[in-house]
């Protein structure tokens, strides 16, 4: 037993000197440079999934999403109410009991990587949040659904045209007045920066908050991505074309998030069944939207 332990220790040391590990360490050093120590801020405790898909007012629907997806395995994250920036936290235990609620969080943050070294978290009631930007963002009226359709369409089109988006990336956004909150997941640095660049240069866009997470590549995740795409290309081939797809497959640490749209409930259900049967998959969040094709004009 002890011999096995000693070999494991050796392998650990070996890994720590491997080129990939060294590369990661170098990246971490770079990220440290952007570390910020901030005073505490009011935050909403969300699930990673809902935070990156439903950025908008904290409605009952959003709270339900947070609680349900957290129970299903999505990690808890903090959403800073002042500007809707999402932070993954190092000590999830400190916040996990408050998913769907609010709190005052303190610690070291890294905005670019969207991470926070949590030092303290005190749960608070919604009514205790001080008046200001934070409460403004809780108000459903702040989120402009009407009156900015043109701007919304411009942003949507720009994001649709990002060249390096694949089946494994999904970038979403929300308009808050003229400000844009970018969310989603990507496997490439360039997609995160390109999305922000494209949106910032649109006339009429105000502040841009970039909550797009760069996914870890991970050996097992790569296997899952390839297997998931291959499985869906067989069973849902009509949703794939030569250089893209209607269905997006986001894989993060063994969890699959299915996004996009399918035409029938059967396609929705079979996608879940297909992916649940893949080796190494912990959970499938099927967030596909079922949108039946518009009836053809008989005239």
């Amino acid at each position: 037993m002890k011999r096995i332990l000693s070999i494991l220790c050796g392998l650990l040391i070996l890994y720590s000197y491997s080129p990939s590990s060294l590369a990661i360490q170098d990246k971490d050093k770079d990220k440290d440079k952007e570390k910020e120590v901030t005073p505490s801020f009011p935050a909403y405790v969300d699930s990673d999934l809902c935070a990156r898909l439903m950025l908008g007012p904290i409605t009952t629907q959003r709270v339900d999403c947070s609680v349900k997806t957290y129970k299903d395995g999505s990690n808890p994250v903090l959403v800073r109410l002042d500007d809707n920036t999402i932070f993954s936290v190092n000590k999830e235990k400190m916040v996990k009991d408050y998913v769907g609620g609010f709190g005052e969080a303190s610690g070291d943050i890294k905005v670019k990587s969207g991470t926070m070294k949590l030092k303290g978290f005190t749960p608070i009631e919604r009514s205790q949040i001080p008046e200001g930007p934070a409460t403004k963002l809780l108000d459903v009226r702040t989120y402009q659904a009407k009156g900015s359709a043109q701007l919304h369409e411009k942003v949507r089109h720009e994001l649709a045209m990002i060249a390096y988006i694949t089946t494994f990336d999904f970038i979403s956004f929300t308009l808050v007045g003229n400000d844009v909150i970018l969310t989603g997941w990507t496997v490439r640095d360039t997609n995160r920066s390109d999305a922000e660049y494209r949106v910032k240069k649109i006339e009429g866009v105000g502040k841009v908050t970039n909550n797009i997470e760069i996914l870890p590549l991970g050996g097992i995740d790569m296997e899952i991505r390839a297997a998931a795409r291959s499985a869906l290309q067989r069973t849902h081939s009509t949703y794939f074309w030569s250089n893209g797809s209607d269905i997006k497959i986001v894989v993060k640490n063994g969890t699959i998030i299915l996004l996009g749209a399918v035409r029938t409930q059967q396609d929705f259900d079979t996608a879940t069944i297909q992916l649940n049967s893949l080796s190494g998959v912990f959970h499938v969040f099927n967030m596909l939207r079922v949108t039946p094709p518009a009836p053809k004009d008989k005239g």
Partner: protein
Amino acid sequence: MNRSRYFWKALAGSLCLAFAMAIATGCSPAETKASVKKIPANQEFSGFLKDYASLKPNPNLDGNALTFAAADAKQNLRSYFAIIVDPVEVYVATDADASKVDDEARIALTNYFQHALVDAVSDAFPVVNEPSPLTLRLRTAIVGVDVGGQVAAGDVPADAKPLHQALNIGKVGVEMELVDSKTGERIAAMVDKTNLGAGAEVGAANFSRMQKFAAAREAFDEWASRVRTFLDSEHELKGEDAVKADQSYRPYGE
């Protein structure tokens, strides 16, 4: 007590072994794997690529670049998003004396180009070390290298180390291919020939820092940049693909 001592011995032994292996595998320069080959006589290409017949002129790239990109809907450049950048190989000109190619010069050359390639592609294709699905392997060769003259210490600044013998890169070109890292199947390829002219040479181990060798530095940066341009042009959404991507995309934050 004896068991405990044995445990610590085993731990120390395995740590030493691991450290030695780490140095041997992780910390040693990858370029030592590279070797010098020669372009066969009367051949247009070096033979580094298995097939040159499918290469065609690329209108997106200036000059004499020939490229190939797989058109298979299920296996093309857009099917991959990570990359392994292999050590760069060197092919000397047919009439060059390969035995006179200084190892240090070759390493300086290939090291610089490999780093330039990594810099050029890494934000679009995350660079990894191990083969896996969805990962490409970038194989690259510098072809047509010739032996240059002796390098006098006075030709380089005092704080830089001159090479014994310079490498002439006035007539070099680049051949590269992207293959599936698991199966080896070719997904894309490029042959880029540029005549840099007389005087383009590498004469110091850290040539990238010296004005005298600016032509070499610029040439390698340019080639790396053209590899990226090629990848960008293959990813650009055009025609029906652009229409489909636009129609398909609906954000969730509504």
